[in-house]
């Protein structure tokens, strides 16, 4: 038996930090790099055919730009404008799309949390925009600010969540006219990660940009110099871009801030029932808006989004994480590489509670992201019910799978040390590997350690109360909320933010009819 070699005494049981310690032992912050070859369901001719079809949509059918200013910008740039219908030819499209960078960085108020979008990098953001939230203790309920803040704390806590996406749940207890102000304030104080602003009216996106600028202590010029936040817009499929989304896109672009353009082509409802057709339509819709960005401020970063899934043809309800969804995402990845644009997809499912269905549909969505070469994963943690509910337990469960994906993406070393010929020789046919020096040197970090999987045997699991995954997640999120520490922020900046919110509230925020 091999000799144990310890680095001396470490205080015995009482000195073992593993016994108490934080809610979970999580991975360090870092931007994962996905170096796998992507999966390519389309042959090269397929990519060409889809590109040709997308160009024909833009040339022969056109896209409706329901925003006069946007339509006129495109007309001035040489597009054909007919009422709201904009047509553009393929040379023009390709020339403009080529101006968008294939990789860029976004720097939040804490520069250590800068993220890279594009290349082989992959970043994850929290679930966005569900009107409801749920947890095992309180059940499903309409979202409120307290829950909104809880989810922001999870977002900040987990190193595998790289950016604070849309509202993790809608705080319905805040009036819609001023909701964005309180939400942005919470996002910018409870987290220090890259944040998002909604394109749901000029005031909302302008306020979001101002607040991000204030939080980072930047002048107008400094803010406009490089990406500091981002927005994400959906097209109104089929073939339309709506007013508020285009308005927000133009405002963000003028200040150098990136837009993710994500058509939401539900095959069978808003797009052809064939996945290739639905992806092709999605590509055309996305490129049309990306062209607009490049006409306004050439070189401004843009991301092509993919959210093509099937609907339940018996009810019309959207389905996610299905085999069709996986294929659609992979095809979108092929097209994103064809246009040399970063790709966004999502971690979605249609389950009503954090059960097995939620887990396998989410896992399919995540594998779709990895195998498609996705760069930005939206809704990466917390999503249930096709986006209608944010679940506390699912957030924790998803962070487990995100960590697993990050572990999976780590390079697999294959040096002589890793091949371990000497260790194999040392142990021989009759020994075991627990005690050899090769194991002793590596055991703590050799494998990914899940924080929520239970690997005990049946009897032990039963003695422990037969606790299932959601219950384990429930315990963890409570501990995380206890442990959460707000990121530091300069008091003067915090005050300036609060003043801004107060002023904008007194001015009425974003006017509504109610």
């Amino acid at each position, binding site marked *: 038996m091999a000799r144990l070699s310890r680095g001396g005494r470490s205080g015995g049981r009482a000195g073992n930090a593993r016994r108490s310690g934080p809610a979970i032992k999580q991975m360090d912050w870092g931007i994962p790099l996905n170096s796998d070859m992507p999966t390519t369901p389309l042959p090269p001719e397929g990519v060409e055919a889809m590109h040709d079809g997308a160009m024909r949509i833009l040339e022969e059918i056109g896209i409706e730009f329901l925003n006069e200013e946007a339509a006129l910008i495109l007309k001035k740039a040489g597009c054909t404008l007919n009422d709201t219908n904009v047509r553009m030819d393929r040379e023009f499209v390709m020339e403009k799309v080529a101006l968008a960078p294939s990789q860029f960085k976004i720097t939040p108020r804490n520069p250590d949390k800068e993220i890279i979008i594009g290349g082989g990098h992959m970043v994850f953001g929290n679930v966005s925009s569900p009107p409801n939230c749920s947890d095992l203790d309180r059940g499903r309920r309409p*979202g409120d600010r307290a829950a909104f803040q809880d989810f922001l704390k999870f977002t900040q806590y987990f190193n595998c969540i790289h950016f604070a996406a849309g509202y993790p749940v809608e705080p319905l207890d805040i009036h819609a006219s001023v*909701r964005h102000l309180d939400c942005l304030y919470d996002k910018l104080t409870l987290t220090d990660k890259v944040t998002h602003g909604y394109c749901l009216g000029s005031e909302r996106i302008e306020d979001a940009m101002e607040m991000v600028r204030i939080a980072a202590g930047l002048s107008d010029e400094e803010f406009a110099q490089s990406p500091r936040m981002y927005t994400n817009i959906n097209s109104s499929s089929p073939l339309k871009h*709506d007013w508020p989304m285009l308005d927000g896109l133009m405002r963000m672009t003028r200040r150098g801030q990136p837009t993710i353009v994500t058509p939401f082509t*539900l095959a069978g409802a808003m797009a052809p029932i064939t996945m290739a057709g639905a992806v092709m339509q999605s590509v055309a819709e996305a490129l049309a808006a990306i062209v607009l960005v490049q006409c306004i401020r050439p070189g401004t970063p843009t991301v092509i989004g993919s959210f093509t899934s099937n609907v339940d043809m*018996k*009810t019309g309800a959207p389905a996610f994480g299905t085999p069709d969804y996986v294929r659609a995402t992979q095809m979108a990845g092929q097209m994103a590489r064809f246009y040399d644009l970063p790709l966004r997809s999502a971690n979605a499912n249609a389950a009503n509670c954090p059960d097995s269905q939620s887990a396998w549909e989410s896992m399919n969505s995540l594998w779709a992201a990895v195998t498609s070469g996705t760069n930005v994963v939206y809704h990466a943690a917390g999503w249930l019910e096709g986006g209608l509910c944010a679940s506390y337990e699912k957030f924790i469960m998803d962070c487990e799978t995100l960590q697993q994906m990050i572990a999976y993406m780590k390079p697999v070393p294959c040096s002589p040390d890793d091949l371990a010929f000497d260790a194999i020789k040392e142990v021989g046919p009759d020994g075991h590997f627990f005690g050899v020096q090769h194991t002793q040197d590596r055991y703590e970090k050799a494998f990914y350690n899940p924080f929520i999987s239970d690997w005990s045997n049946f009897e032990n699991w039963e003695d422990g109360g037969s606790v299932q995954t959601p219950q384990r997640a429930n315990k963890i999120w409570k501990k995380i909320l206890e442990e959460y520490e707000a990121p530091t922020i300069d008091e003067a900046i915090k005050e300036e933010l609060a003043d801004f919110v107060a002023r904008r509230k007194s001015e009425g925020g974003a006017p*509504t*009819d109610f």
Partner: protein
Amino acid sequence: MPDNEDTIILEDLNDGDLVEQMHDDIYDGLVDEIEQGTKILLNRGWDANNVLTEVLVEGMRVVGVDFRDGILFVPEVLLSANAMKGGMGLLRPILAQSDNIASTGKYVIGTVKGDIHDIGKNLVGMMLEGAGFEVVDLGINNSVEDYLHAIDKHQPHILGMSALLTTTMPYMKVVIEELDKRGILKQLHVMVGGAPLNQEFADAINSDAYGRDAAVSVELAKALVGKTQGRVLEAM
């Protein structure tokens, strides 16, 4: 199967068999056959109202049940509803001349201002038509004025509003309050729907019913129209 074995001459069927065949043809979404069958029954002296209720509405009732139970696909129901509409097209002018009600009821439906989600609303509209309602679809992005104008023009039994955004849901209340102010709520039922809504919200904004899906919405709509007709009878 060779064609001749499958061919059914509708003219040759007696009334009972013809009605049964038409129920099947509605289920199979055969618009030409339904139009032909409707003409035959009318020629045989059937009352238009009976054709409507016993043949078309009854046929669609079965379709509705199988849709609710997840047996039929949306495109199939769409064809059934189209077949039903084909028959309705022939009946409506006749019904309009008599004292009969020309449909199960009149329904104005639309998505509220600021909101462009319409998949669910379209499905509800389709199923309502299938159930014999005369549906006026106002599309998306409707202001109070749009609804008022449509109510004035079409005099519906029910107004249906759809919203899928938490920022547009409150607008439903604005519409209902305006209808109330103008005394319109006395003759008009208001139904609301859309994924983020729930019964509590529907109650809080003083609507008459919340439709969680298309099948339930049709049942609720029928019940509401039943109430109106009850009210009218009581008044007489």
